[in-house]
């Protein structure tokens, strides 16, 4: 293998490039990124960076003395792939043929239909998004956040800490209910309300009002919430449109085997754009967590270098964290697999607790809220038990 082309210059792309080097690949290594920036860390964009506690230099993912011999092609997007020929076409009209292709194009924030061209309406995915939102929040008084997922809950918390009047609109019964289950989501909702976030639940947004600039949000029950800034945190879609006609099998992401190999030899996919086969659940699915990209970069590199003969270790259960206010939320596993959830330490009303989700007697997920030390012990137990992937 003489040339490997990594398409995507964020966490998954950088770490796969680095893993290729550490696994002995010495050939040409080209990394393509549609953003003009060197790889940066996205989780702080909704937290410390938005708050102004850290700057852009702090977001860099590369160390000072790092030299993995990468040829960077930044500010150009990949527009087409011929998977069989492993030729990548770029937005500047050039193309690049490679012996191996790593697809790490991530996902894009879903936008609210009908808000195109309306100032004051934001999504948050990239550094440029975060700069724009930070600037807009600086002069705003009232923020409405649409969607109570991670981005929505974190932006709501950060804006509240910045002193804004914040309303979070969630169409379900509580923020994060889809991932941590309703009982525990209620406890997290309480933390937000105690810290001054107004929660509106069980309603849909029908319209963002305003002519040139958003001035509010209309809800399905007829309520109008005035707003100076609106943030839509309504999920992300995998960046795979450029792969139509490539010859690769696509679904909700690039369909891959359990080692990250795509449907055509010499092509692997990793990160938010990749739907790996989950042998435990017998289906493909995407893992949109930071730690998932980190673990799978190493596996994908081995798959590419071995021509698909490397046998991956069983995937570790998904681990993620979320910082909201002074609260460190940590979660591992799958709440949906559980029939019971019990608080085993602390008290949800006190803002510090640990809950264990079980299927029968078997722990399948753990939630820690300001319980870092104890959570680590549980995480270790779940990660070393050879039970559930994904």
């Amino acid at each position, binding site marked *: 293998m003489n040339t490997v082309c990594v398409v995507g210059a964020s*966490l998954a792309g950088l770490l796969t490039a680095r893993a290729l080097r550490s696994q002995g690949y010495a050939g040409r290594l080209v990394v393509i990124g549609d953003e003009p920036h060197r790889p940066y860390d996205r989780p702080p964009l909704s937290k410390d960076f938005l708050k102004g506690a*850290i700057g852009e230099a702090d977001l860099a*993912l590369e160390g000072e003395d790092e030299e993995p011999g990468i040829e960077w092609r930044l500010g150009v997007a990949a527009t087409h792939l011929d998977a069989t020929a492993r030729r990548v076409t770029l937005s500047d009209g050039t193309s690049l043929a490679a012996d191996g292709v790593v697809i790490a194009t991530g996902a894009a924030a879903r936008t609210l239909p009908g808000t195109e061209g309306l100032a004051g309406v934001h999504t948050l995915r990239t550094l440029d998004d975060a700069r724009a939102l930070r600037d807009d929040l600086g002069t705003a008084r009232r923020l409405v956040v649409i969607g109570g997922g991670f981005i929505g809950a974190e932006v709501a918390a950060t804006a509240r800490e910045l002193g804004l009047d914040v309303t979070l609109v969630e169409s379900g019964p509580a923020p994060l209910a889809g991932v941590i289950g309703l009982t525990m989501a209620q406890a997290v909702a309480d933390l937000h309300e105690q810290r001054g976030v107004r929660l509106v639940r069980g309603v849909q947004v029908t319209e963002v009002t305003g002519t040139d600039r958003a001035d509010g949000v209309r809800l399905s029950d007829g309520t109008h919430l005035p707003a100076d800034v609106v943030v839509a945190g309504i999920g992300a879609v995998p960046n795979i449109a450029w792969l139509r006609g490539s010859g690769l099998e696509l679904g909700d992401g690039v369909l891959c085997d359990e080692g990250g190999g795509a449907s055509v030899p010499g092509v692997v996919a990793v990160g938010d754009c990749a739907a790996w086969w989950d042998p435990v659940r017998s289906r493909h699915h995407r893992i949109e967590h930071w730690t998932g990209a980190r673990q799978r970069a190493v596996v994908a590199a081995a798959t590419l270098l071995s021509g698909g003969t490397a046998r991956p270790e069983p995937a570790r259960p998904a681990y993620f964290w979320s910082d909201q206010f002074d609260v*460190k939320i940590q979660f591992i596993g799958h709440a949906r697999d559980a029939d019971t959830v019990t608080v085993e330490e602390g008290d949800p009303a006190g803002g510090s607790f640990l809950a264990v989700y079980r299927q029968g007697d078997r722990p399948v997920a753990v939630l820690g809220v300001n319980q*870092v*030390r104890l959570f680590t012990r549980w995480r270790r137990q779940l990660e070393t038990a050879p039970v559930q992937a994904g």
Partner: protein
Amino acid sequence: MIPACPLASLPRGEALRLDVDPPIAVFHTDDGEIFAIDDTCTHQDASLADGWLEGCEVECPLHASRFDLRTGKVDAPPAKRPVRTHEVVVEDDTIYVVPSDAPPNLPPGVTLKGEA
């Protein structure tokens, strides 16, 4: 030299946080070696003594960067800079730490108490 604790009170696989400025974490590995490093992760304010000790490495309890207890080096992001390592002396069944005089690599927003 700072006295940390009696050797017998730090079993293998365990860690101890010393409340000095900045805090120091002392680890007793499963192989019986004792190491001391700065306790605060260089990425964000997290106590490495709360982390996952495996061999001669500790994984940050929040974001999973791993630090080598022997060299202080970090394996992968989000942390980029190494932690300081400190010399450990065991004398008369007591663990002592000789703090490094190198400047610490504290994360953004964390300062020495004396400079706060």
